[in-house]
């Protein structure tokens, strides 16, 4: 029988209990929700906590509100639940699609939205998309609750501002204007079960033929996923046109740090990023103008 992955595991029944446990054990405890990222790290020795705090039993598995009025998604809501939620499929289908591309079907039954954000891989599907949707995260610790805009949540690859004594309890997606359009493209080498080689998310609000508001998020092309603010500035207030989009694509690419590794070289990633940006902007615009 293989060795157990920690010495002890606690199953707090309330968020307050969970926070108390983390306050007591902080340096020697790891929080587990879905476990789909954590367990491979425990098996590899990347993390070796003395004990685990299992938050799977906390009442953080919910989808409240609506895309139009604003969504509050509990941190332990699974990818499967998001992918199959009627209100999300109807009003925010890009989120259902992104959740449905995390790992494979078995992964999605366990993996949680909070876990994707706290793992903070720059390639994370929901990491990338939720930045473009201007999400915020609610954290709870011994000093109480705080809400952090997602774009301030990531400090570096797999590093966040979450304290060791805090847990993420909710993801907040602000209300989306009626005429919004959005797209998320995850470019992978394999058809399924793969991490994004490049990830692009776009949310756009048109005003006739002009771009009233646009958010462009890039994943897997830098140490953290980020919003391409210069590109957004180039596009906002302007007429939707190929020239302006090209200018924005160039600005977005300039912000990326493309690496060469066993999966692809930097030039390839750079080329793919431009293609995905053009496609995602076009699809988001199209979806705003026509059907979703």
């Amino acid at each position, binding site marked *: *029988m*293989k060795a157990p992955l*920690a010495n002890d595991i606690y199953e707090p029944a309330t968020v307050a209990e969970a926070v108390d446990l983390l306050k007591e054990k902080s340096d020697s405890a790891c929080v587990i929700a879905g476990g789909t990222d954590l*367990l491979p790290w425990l098996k590899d020795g990347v993390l070796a906590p003395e004990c685990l705090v299992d938050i799977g039993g906390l009442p953080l598995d919910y989808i409240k509100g609506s895309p139009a009025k604003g969504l509050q998604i509990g941190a332990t809501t699974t990818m*499967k639940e998001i992918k199959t939620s009627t209100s999300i499929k109807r009003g925010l289908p890009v989120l259902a699609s992104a959740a449905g591309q995390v*790992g494979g*079907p*078995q992964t999605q039954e366990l993996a949680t939205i909070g876990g994707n954000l706290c793992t903070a891989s720059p390639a994370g599907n929901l990491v990338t998309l939720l930045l473009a949707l201007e999400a915020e995260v609610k954290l709870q610790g011994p000093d109480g609750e705080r809400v952090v805009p997602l774009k301030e949540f990531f400090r570096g690859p797999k590093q966040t501002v979450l304290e060791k004594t805090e847990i993420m309890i909710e993801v907040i997606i602000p209300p989306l204007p009626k005429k919004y359009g959005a797209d998320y493209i995850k470019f992978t080498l394999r058809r*399924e*079960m793969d991490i994004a080689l490049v990830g692009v998310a776009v949310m756009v609000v048109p005003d006739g033929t002009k771009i009233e508001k646009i958010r462009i998020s890039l994943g897997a092309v830098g140490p953290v996923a980020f919003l391409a603010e210069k590109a957004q500035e180039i596009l906002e207030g302007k007429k939707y046109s190929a020239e302006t989009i090209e200018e924005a694509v160039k600005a977005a690419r300039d912000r990326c740090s493309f690496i060469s590794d066993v999966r692809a070289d930097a030039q390839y990633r750079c080329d793919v990023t431009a293609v995905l940006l053009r496609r995602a902007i076009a699809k988001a615009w199209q979806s705003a103008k026509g059907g979703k």
Partner: protein
Amino acid sequence: MKREIHCKINGEKRTFRADPCSTAVDVLRDHLYLTGTKSSCETGDCGACTILWNGKAVNACLLLANRMEGAEIVTIEGVMKRGRLDPVQKAFIEEDAAQCGFCTPGFIMRVKAFLNENPSPSDEEIKNALAGNLCRCTGYIDIIAAVKNAVMKLKG
């Protein structure tokens, strides 16, 4: 530190002592001798360890034993009922969908969960549903045929 775990496995109430920080696949195989569930990649990539956990097809290598408490678990050993093969098992046999058979329990558990949710899948939906199960032998064609065969059996 071990604790007593109470759950239902393959329709039977079971109580046993196990370390809650062991994985469910290790407990099922090494402690309960239910070796039909296979341990392969141990990272949730191959699906060979797929079991039904409260009706959901999950990788048992990513489930800690503490999550077995109070759960209803079905492994490949629990698929045959009263000596009769399940329609999914019959379909796999009819379509020659196993060569070495190592991936087969994982596929069958996944297919059972999938067809419970989606009894009339399209070809595309079938392929997507099997994304979490790898087979090194067959090239998947016969496995996909087995799923379609099972769909017909479950309808008729």
